[in-house]
């Protein structure tokens, strides 16, 4: 009788299934990842232990950075256009249809409304921080406080938009009032922040969010 031969198992493992799964996951993550838009004004936000995420839609963001420069942006492009239409009527400044189409694609801006047409007419990559001096803000409710009116008109536009969608889209759930977030640089002085907070409080937008990064230890 010969010795029982121990069959040598092959060292190579079949990797096909593993490869399939990993590429499936990879595809999933690539597709779900939201491509980060290059920001017009990069802001280094302070960190907090808050875990609530910023909503993606139904939101407007006031960005403050670079020594008190204020930018404003409405997330939903349709609401954005409606806001500009309201502002155009308010300040008596006309915009062409082409302007509205271009404005629809602008994430944020930081110019007084008189210069907005000039900004819209620029190429996308030329609308950088240097050509935008920021939106005028003060503690009044007059036309000079442009931020006040931008926020107010955006809120009105979002209400109008949500009501509009209710009739058009089946099963539309009203997301409620538009949220306002303040994305400020960590080193931004409170004097500027106070103006913005007062501007919001003047129109009874007493609830708002500060955008922060995540801090792990506390």
């Amino acid at each position, binding site marked *: 009788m010969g010795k029982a031969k121990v069959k040598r198992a092959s060292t*190579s*493992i*079949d*990797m*096909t299934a*593993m*490869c399939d799964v*990993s*590429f499936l*996951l*990879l595809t999933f*993550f*690539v597709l*779900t*990842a*939201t491509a*980060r838009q290059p920001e017009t004004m990069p802001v280094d*936000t*302070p*960190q*907090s*232990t*808050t*875990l*609530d*995420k*910023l*909503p993606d839609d139904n939101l407007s963001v006031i960005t*403050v950075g670079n020594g008190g420069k204020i930018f404003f942006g409405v997330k939903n492009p349709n609401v954005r256009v409606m806001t500009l239409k309201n502002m155009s009527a308010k300040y008596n400044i006309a915009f062409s249809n082409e302007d509205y189409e271009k404005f629809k694609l602008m994430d944020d801006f930081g110019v007084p409304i008189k210069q907005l047409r000039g900004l819209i007419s620029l190429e996308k990559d030329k609308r950088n921080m240097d050509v935008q001096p920021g939106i005028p803000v003060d503690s009044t409710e007059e036309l000079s406080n442009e931020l006040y009116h931008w926020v107010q008109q955006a809120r009105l536009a979002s209400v109008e938009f949500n009501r509009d969608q209710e009739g058009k889209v089946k099963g539309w759930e009203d997301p409620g009032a538009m*949220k306002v*977030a303040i*994305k*400020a*640089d*960590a*080193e*931004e*002085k*409170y*004097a500027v*922040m*106070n103006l913005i*907070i*007062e501007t*919001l*409080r*003047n129109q*009874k937008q*007493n*609830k*708002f*969010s*500060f*955008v*922060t*990064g*995540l*801090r792990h230890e*506390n």
Partner: protein
Amino acid sequence: MAELNQDSGGGKKGGKVRSKKNGGKVDLTAMVDLAFLLITFFMLTTSLSKPQAMDVNMPDKNKDKSIVDDIEIADNRSITLLLGSDNKIAWYYGQLASPLSPPAVVDYSKEGIRKIVLEKKAQVPKVSGGKDLIVVIRPSDRSVQRNLVDILDEMKITDVKRFMISKIKPEEVEVLKTNGIYNE
């Protein structure tokens, strides 16, 4: 399969020596490595890049100047935090004119402001008959956004339910100045 075996018979021995057919065998290890590396990258970037939102509620603004809205709070229930420059806080217990403990300067660390807030949070219900602590946050113009976020975060960590952000008074700015934390 990673190895496509195209050997049909396998029993023929002693035939012609042919070059072994090896075309179907591909080593997938490197490919899997790469795929997992990319998965890891996308997983981490998607979850981390989403910013956090810290909700803030302010009281309704009183536009009528004739109504004085200074709410009377029992002295022994409130501490006031004056946010100054250089990441420092001046705090006092009670009222500034007759404080139960005079203004002192602390920083934003665990050993600094948190210790004080936790201490007062435990002490206040005992001296005020079960009522909880009220923290008044007064940022000065020389404090920065990080200070405000830090202190609001601290309120959340120490679980203080009653706190408010209000406007700093001129005499409180003087306190910051005398303590040397009102610099540009």
